[in-house]
């Protein structure tokens, strides 16, 4: 939200941030820049007709994915909605497989079957990329339940939007999370709007959306999403509560998206004032804020920041080239990845008819 009041506290001094080496800080900055450059390239080629379906840009929200995911260890897992590019790059997915996915190519992370809304990298503990609003919230619960069941000390960060909080599945998940003691952290990325509808027009609440957690005796907190240090400091507490105490948390991270809901959204300057957008860009841009911060800390120079920016743009351009040159799926590819048994040609897959073409 534009109204995110600048915090009085300085989270740079939180232990979890003090533990950051200069290299790691630069890495986090670089990740945010890479997300932005990647998406700018995506936007360009979406508008050129190279990418189909919807394109939901994360630009403006980068500190949320990068800050929270930077806290993840080997047993921490992540799952989000359709606005998933930031999370994908933050968990370590390459620009190539992400861009190729948007291009609908065989080399895409989902072989061109999922598209922009459905990036996956289970090897990096990233479970998508989901198109049905709040449909991922019980899955996030399940990943965390799975960790507990399998005896692994970890948690699941499950992201959702400010509009998604009004889906029933989310509430069912909260009750179960609290009742069963599931190590899940729900992260509401509150960018103030669900499509063209402001938070006030879609949700009834007391104080803030995260406060709904009280209904289930769940801890909650509100975070300024433009400050990567604050995101890390507060999310760390929630993750530790999950990992050590097997207790869920609901975090609401105030943030903003610069573009429309998706690039098909031609209205976004109607339901938001130009001043609102401009104010966020000027005063709350997470990349600009962290850049100033690192320069002030003496960790990064202007030159380095410029180089990082240029490198990210180059990397993004290379991913476009990779995507362009990759082969498209064939008609035969339509029929794979439907059944595990069929893909693995198991005895079970040989018995009975599985597919009903003709």
């Amino acid at each position: 939200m534009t109204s995110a009041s600048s915090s009085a506290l300085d989270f740079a001094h939180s232990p979890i941030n003090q533990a950051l080496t200069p290299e790691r800080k630069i890495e986090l900055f670089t990740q945010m820049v890479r997300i932005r450059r990647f998406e700018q390239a995506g936007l360009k080629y979406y508008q050129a007709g190279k990418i189909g379906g919807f394109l939901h840009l994360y630009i403006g929200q980068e500190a949320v994915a990068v800050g929270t995911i930077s806290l993840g260890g080997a047993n921490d897992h992540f799952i989000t909605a359709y606005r998933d590019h930031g999370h994908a790059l933050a968990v370590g997915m390459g620009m190539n497989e992400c861009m190729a996915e948007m291009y609908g190519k065989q080399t895409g992370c989902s072989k061109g079957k999922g598209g922009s809304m459905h990036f996956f990298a289970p090897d990096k503990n990233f479970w998508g990329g989901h198109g049905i609003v709040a449909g991922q919230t019980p899955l996030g619960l399940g990943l965390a339940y799975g960790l507990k069941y399998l005896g692994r000390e970890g948690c699941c960060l499950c992201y959702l939007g400010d509009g998604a909080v009004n889906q029933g599945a989310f509430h069912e998940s909260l009750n179960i999370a609290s009742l069963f003691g599931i190590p899940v952290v729900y992260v509401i990325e509150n960018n103030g709007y669900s499509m063209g509808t402001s938070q006030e027009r879609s949700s009834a609440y007391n104080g803030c959306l995260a406060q709904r957690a009280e209904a289930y005796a769940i801890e909650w907190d509100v975070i300024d999403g433009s400050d990567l240090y604050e995101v890390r400091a507060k999310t760390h507490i929630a993750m530790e509560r999950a990992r050590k105490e097997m207790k869920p948390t609901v975090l609401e991270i105030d943030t903003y998206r610069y573009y429309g809901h998706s690039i098909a959204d031609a209205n976004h300057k109607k339901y938001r004032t130009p001043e609102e957008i401009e104010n966020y860009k000027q005063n709350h841009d997470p990349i600009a804020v962290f850049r100033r911060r690192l320069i002030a800390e003496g960790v990064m120079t202007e030159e380095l920041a410029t180089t990082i920016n240029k490198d990210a743009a180059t990397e993004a351009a290379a991913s476009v080239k990779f995507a362009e040159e990759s082969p498209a799926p064939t008609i035969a590819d339509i029929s794979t990845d439907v059944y595990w048994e069929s893909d693995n040609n198991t005895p079970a897959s040989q018995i009975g008819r599985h597919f009903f073409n003709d």
Partner: protein
Amino acid sequence: MSRILTYREALREGLDEELARDPNVVLMGEEVAQYNGAYKVTEGLWKKWGDKRIVDTPISEAGFIGMGIGASMLGVRPVMELMFWSFHSVAFDQLVSNAACVRYMSGGLCNCPIVVRGPANGGTGVGATHSHIPEGLFAAFPGLKVCAPATPADAKGLIKAAIRDNDPVYFMENTLLYGTTGEVPDPADGDFVIPLGLAEIKREGSDVSLIAHGRSVIQALAAAEILKNDHGIDAEVLDLRSIRPLDQDAILKSVMKTNRVVLVDESKPFGGVSAMVAMLIQDHAFDYLDGPIKRVCSIDAPAIYSPHIEHEQLPNPRRIVEKVLSLG
């Protein structure tokens, strides 16, 4: 006199006329009012009719559709937009338990005059969770009615019939048709309503019946042109328009004329409207069939995203032509 309108405009005109006709008609859904609709079907209606008649809802399909059902029992006539019919999955209980059964379970004491409308189609690169073709799914529930217009005139005529119908009608549109154009009668020439349950021959022919609904009609018409021009085959194209009630007479009449049938159905092949139509044809026109009824459905997998290949998963003129030629 008729005018050329887009499918979207025709729908909107139908909605607008019904809003004017009956003060109990209310449109609701996500982004239908201030945003003018995700696909602009309701553009301008909020400005014209205001907050009471055109209602923006939260992203709570079970909540607002259930609300519409409850209000309908009291005499309100809600027309509810699903931004995509695919989102039926989160409102399924309200759609199939409450709307379909409340009349029956009350021994006829409750009515449920609702319309649920929105696009239901593949072909736009939005992937498996946004590309459902649920006509057959809902037609399977007695108590529900389903239609799927293919042209602007049908869209207008059927939405008006749907709104006036005193039973729940699930109305399936198509994002790929919204921009297509066609003749629509002028309102000055009288109220234009197309009853549910009436199929239409969109192209006369004698060699083979292509039976379809929704955008598959357009694909079948394109295939028919190719069949005529390249192969001298004269295909009849029958547009079901309404799935339940279903114009069985028109189906059988066409089959008895051509003796050969290819059903075109964007549904996945297990089930779908086409399996039911095939069942009916072989039951009621067995002796008129020269050979098995064939189908062109979507290839049997969740909807693929890739724009390079998605159209090959769907029925398209090439696949329809090949199927007709395979009849031998």
